């Protein structure tokens, strides 16, 4: 039972506020915002997504810098509330096309319309974008798309959120195109976030792929869709995942073995066991068809070599080397490498490969961090950075203990490490002249890509 729902801007202004039960006192937005902002005096720790102040429970999720908050006095399921907040954000985005503070402010009446139907007297009624369509009468005031970043695939990952909202396209489910006719199209994105930790000697300590097959459909008439995955896809790795050593022969045979997966409500698995086909009637809006998790060994897209050695009493040198271990037809972009340096570092002189293009380096003095950004890395290439450090005091022997680990973020479009594939995407179409557009895209992104030194 939800008492209130509100959305706050980064500065704490309430953009939308809806009270459903009237059992939480006024001023809850201020109480909440103060608590989140000053969770710990030193500001080192983030407020947890759930906390209790004077008998009122506050749930919040951060979406594109906005705080989506629900309050209640009852002992609610935290997953329920947080899933709901996330879902409300997605529904709003489905309607507004682009979700940000500006569009939310422009369309708050529409958002109220939605909120009235999503929750009644604290009880969730529906969060289906499609069902809600019949209750919404306001037209969205769409964002000025020309001011948005260009729609290259990497823009999908403009947000640093863990779950990518995966902006398939930035158009509202109810807005009509300028031409007056909506284009028939469907987007299927296979998004994989990879986490790897390399030991100081370059071995893989842990690795995991968290993948999502995300769909956004603009098809009229709700046709059934069949989505075929790899024939050799297997689920479940037997009891207890086996890491590092002792991989079964599978890695050679090319079978894709998922540890586990889950599916969207609408997915039917009738023939999944036979031919690995998912069938579904996609609801409107954006939704994850399937989430999967994999600890099977995979070839990491980048190798990181990091070396730090003393060069005299007040000097040291860091050498970072990145090798792109994927085919030359693929290009990674928005690559960023970071490394914390000893806290007594005062100055850093960088030295890039001769002829390096689109690479920038920086030493963030505030938190003693080295940052190396590369616009593009073509498959098979190698990039090196040398950094000469100057210290304010003599190091006490072990400078490797005082620095690192090296972390890396990147996006690699049209590449996925798991080898999970959408073999085909079939639309059961009832006699219509034009074939709908079908987009199947793959993207790999670093989640936690770390090399220890």
């Amino acid at each position: 039972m939800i008492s209130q729902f509100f959305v706050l801007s980064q500065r704490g202004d309430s953009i939308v506020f809806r009270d459903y039960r009237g059992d939480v006192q006024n001023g809850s937005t201020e109480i909440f915002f103060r608590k989140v902002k000053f969770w710990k005096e030193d500001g080192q720790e983030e407020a947890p997504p759930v906390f209790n102040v004077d008998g009122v429970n506050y749930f919040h999720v951060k979406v594109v810098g906005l705080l989506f908050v629900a309050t209640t006095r009852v002992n609610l399921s935290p997953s329920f509330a947080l899933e709901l907040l996330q879902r409300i954000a997605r529904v709003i985005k489905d309607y507004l096309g682009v979700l940000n503070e500006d569009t939310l402010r422009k369309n708050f009446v529409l958002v109220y319309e939605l909120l009235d139907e999503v929750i009644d007297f604290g009880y969730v009624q529906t969060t289906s974008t499609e069902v809600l369509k019949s209750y919404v009468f306001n037209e969205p005031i769409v964002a000025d798309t020309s001011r948005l970043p260009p729609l290259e695939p990497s823009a999908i990952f403009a947000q640093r959120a863990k779950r990518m909202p995966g902006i398939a396209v930035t158009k509202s489910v109810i807005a009509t195109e300028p031409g007056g006719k909506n284009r028939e199209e469907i987007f299927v994105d296979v998004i994989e976030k990879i986490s790897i930790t390399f030991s100081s000697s370059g071995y893989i300590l842990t690795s995991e792929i968290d993948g999502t097959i995300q769909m956004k459909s603009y098809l009229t008439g709700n046709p059934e869709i069949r989505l075929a995955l790899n024939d050799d896809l297997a689920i479940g790795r037997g009891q207890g995942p086996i890491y590092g050593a002792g991989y079964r022969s599978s890695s050679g045979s090319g079978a894709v073995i998922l540890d586990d997966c889950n599916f969207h409500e609408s997915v039917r698995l009738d023939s999944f066991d036979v031919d690995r086909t998912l069938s579904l009637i996609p609801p409107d809006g954006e939704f994850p068809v399937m989430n999967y998790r994999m600890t099977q060994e995979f070839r990491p897209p980048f190798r990181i070599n990091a070396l730090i050695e003393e060069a005299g009493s007040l000097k040291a040198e860091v050498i970072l080397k990145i090798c792109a271990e994927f085919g030359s037809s693929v290009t990674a972009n928005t690559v960023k490498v970071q490394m914390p340096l000893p806290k007594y570092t005062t100055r850093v002189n960088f030295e890039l490969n001769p002829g390096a293009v689109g690479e920038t380096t920086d030493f963030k003095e505030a938190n003693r961090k080295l940052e190396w950004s590369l616009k593009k890395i073509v498959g098979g290439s190698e990039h090196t950075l040398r950094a000469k450090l100057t210290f304010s005091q003599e190091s006490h022997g072990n400078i490797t203990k005082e620095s690192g680990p090296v972390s890396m973020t990147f996006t690699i479009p049209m590449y996925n490490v798991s080898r999970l594939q959408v073999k085909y995407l079939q639309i059961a179409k009832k006699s219509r002249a034009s074939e709908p557009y079908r987009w199947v895209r793959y993207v790999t992104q670093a989640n936690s890509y770390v090399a220890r030194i």
Partner: protein
Amino acid sequence: MAPPQQSQRSPSPSQPSGKGEVSDLKSQLRQLAGSRAPGVDDSKRELFKKVISYMTIGIDVSPLFGEMVMCSAASDIVLKKMCYLYVGNYAKVNPDLALLTINFLQRDCKDEDPMIRGLALRSLCSLRVANLVEYLVGPLGSGLKDSNSYVRMVAVIGVLKLYHISASTCVDAEFPSTLKHLMLNDPDALVVANCLSALQEIWTLEASTAEEAAREREALLSKPVVYYFLNRIKEFSEWAQCLVLELAAKYVPSDSNEIFDIMNLLEDRLQHANGAVVLATTKVFLQLTLSMADVHQQVYERIKAPLLTLVSSGSPEQSYAVLSHLHLLVMRAPYIFSGDYKHFYCQYNEPSYVKKLKLEMLTAVANESNTYEIVTELCEYAANVDIPIARESIRAVGKIALQQYDVNAIVDRLLQFLEMEKDYVTAEALVLVKDLLRKYPQWSQDCIAVVGNISSKNVQEPKAKAALIWMLGEYSQDMQDAPYALESLVENWDEEHSPEVRLHLLTAVMKCFFKKPPETQKALGAALAAGLADYHQDVHDRALFYYRLLQYNVSVAERVVNPPKQAVSVFADTQSSEVKDRIFDEFNSLSVVYQKPSYMFTDKEHRGPFEFSDELGNLSIGAESADTVVPAQSVEANDKDLLLSTTEKEDGRDLGSNGSAYSAPSYSSAATSQSHEELALTNASVLGQAPASSFAIDDLLGLDFPVGGTAAAPPPPPPSLRLNPKAVLDPGTFQQKWRQLPISSSQEYSMSPQGVALLTSPNALLKHMKDISIHCIASGGQSPNFKYFFFAQKAEETSTFLVEYIINTSSAKSQIKIKADDQSSSEAFSTLFQSALSKFGSP
């Protein structure tokens, strides 16, 4: 509804403060109200939007009420909706104006468009004005019968809203029974789900006053109803599924076939992408299999993968909620997750609330086979730039060390921390080394060698400094320069701000003195002098105490200050197992995130539909006791887990139902006085066998008497307490009292194995207690935990004592909690109760 929050925030340039704008809007709305000009709707929309946006940021726009209502007579649905929103917001503070809206809302309730009917009905019920309820009954009645499911859905929640405005109107109109009919017959799943929500809320609130409502609430958990919901679970939305699953988790199946049927039916819910559904399903599985140990284990295995997938597939907030539950499971069954420890490794970009949970999990799953890897990983975090996490990691290493048998490798790592020369690392590590030495004194040689090298000047944090000083005192015989290190610390006495450190310093100097008198004498003198001059009371008193002790007899002082110590085998757990069990019972709720049972953070009217009988409610019943459950549970507030009942309850119900439970004065004086004599005898004979602890209490109380020389006054006789042998109390009252009264006494005891065996045969114990007028109201539990609830009443007045008696047969511990109407006699009752227990089984 946005409540007016005016005058709370300082106006910022982007947010107008109100006044001028509001009167501006007012005149503009006036102009438009009567206009029929083309395009007027658009301008109205713009104005309405402005009004709503002011409302959102907390400007009071209620003065516009009349104008808003006038303008919204139009047929434009967008305008209507905005007006509904506005009206719902301000009706409560303007009840007179709200009356204006009744007319058009009632008319809209009969509109031909079901959308308008639904919207109008929703707004009508949202007015929350008590004197308007008469206008609600009619539209609600027809709404519930509407042919359109949207209108019915709105009407069902409308009934609940009406109940909150005026419960009697709602009940008199027989809406609850209409909802029940609808719940079991409506073709639309959302209507059905809303009925369930509404009825749960209504009947739970009604149950405290009406027996029938309590019965109805029970009936929601009956087999036909639960099966009705479970069989059509896939028709419900994911949110309503959570509701159904929550219901199913409370259901008590009659046999194991039923359990397996339900689990097979719900198996695929574990593959749902919505974490709330998966966790709700998990709860059903865990609750159903509580009594089947091996299946329960299989459930853990089964839910592991889906939960881990949820952790990594959602936003950090969603992972946090799932991880909190995983944490609970890991704490309950560490061995099941010990192979999956790598899933709990922290990622560098995770928020700290996630990392902290993961560290706790790593601590919990560490065992012989994985400790090396886990500790290696934790050591990486200790060097991390994120200082709070680095500290937590070091603490985690320490906790693992304290729970392991083989600490060889860990000690080395801890000692390496000391050599890392980062202040906070050293500080944390010192505290850990101290605890480690208290448990494993055999490691002192290795640790002391390293600790001895640490200069106290490099340690600033009080806890760490105190730990270092403790070690200097405790192991001064092995540290050459301990006396000098202490001496220099004493010299800086005035600069030491923490009293904790100064207290430790006093004790350490004393200890050191006994071991190395000549070297320490000077430091001791200085420390005592400084201590006596200390402004802090505790420090001063301790110094004075030491000083007098030394004056009296040095060897006695040594025995007091530095007696031979036993290694600590287990450090006290911060949470009792009872609290942990209760949190587990509240799986998939905030209790798990906060790591507290719900009664610690919610007021009782918000405990949720089935949680409110929290004290008695979570006893589980053994298979045999299920048969003894009286089917017609007329006793209000009795939960599904009806406990082993005693015969008193039959009496109790008769009396309790007419509310005279307390004043049963109809016993002949002869009978009572006779039983009093018996009771007095019992008391006397029993006292000799009472557990020692009760005497200790007496002695403490006896301090009030002047103690002259050796002839101490005899302890005061326990005030005689006479109990009513025919006391009655119905379970509802018991629960109510149990919730309201504070605990007047709570004690823990160890028991002999024979005692344990005896106490687990309930009937004999109940009879024994009944003989001395302490009645059992409920009992139950499964090995190793048994629980009894007793009550007793004073003979001459209606003052009641309530007892919760918990026995853990595996640890041979028992716990007695007593609550009493009359606090002053609770001590006497406690003594009586304990003596009765100790007499039990010793013929």
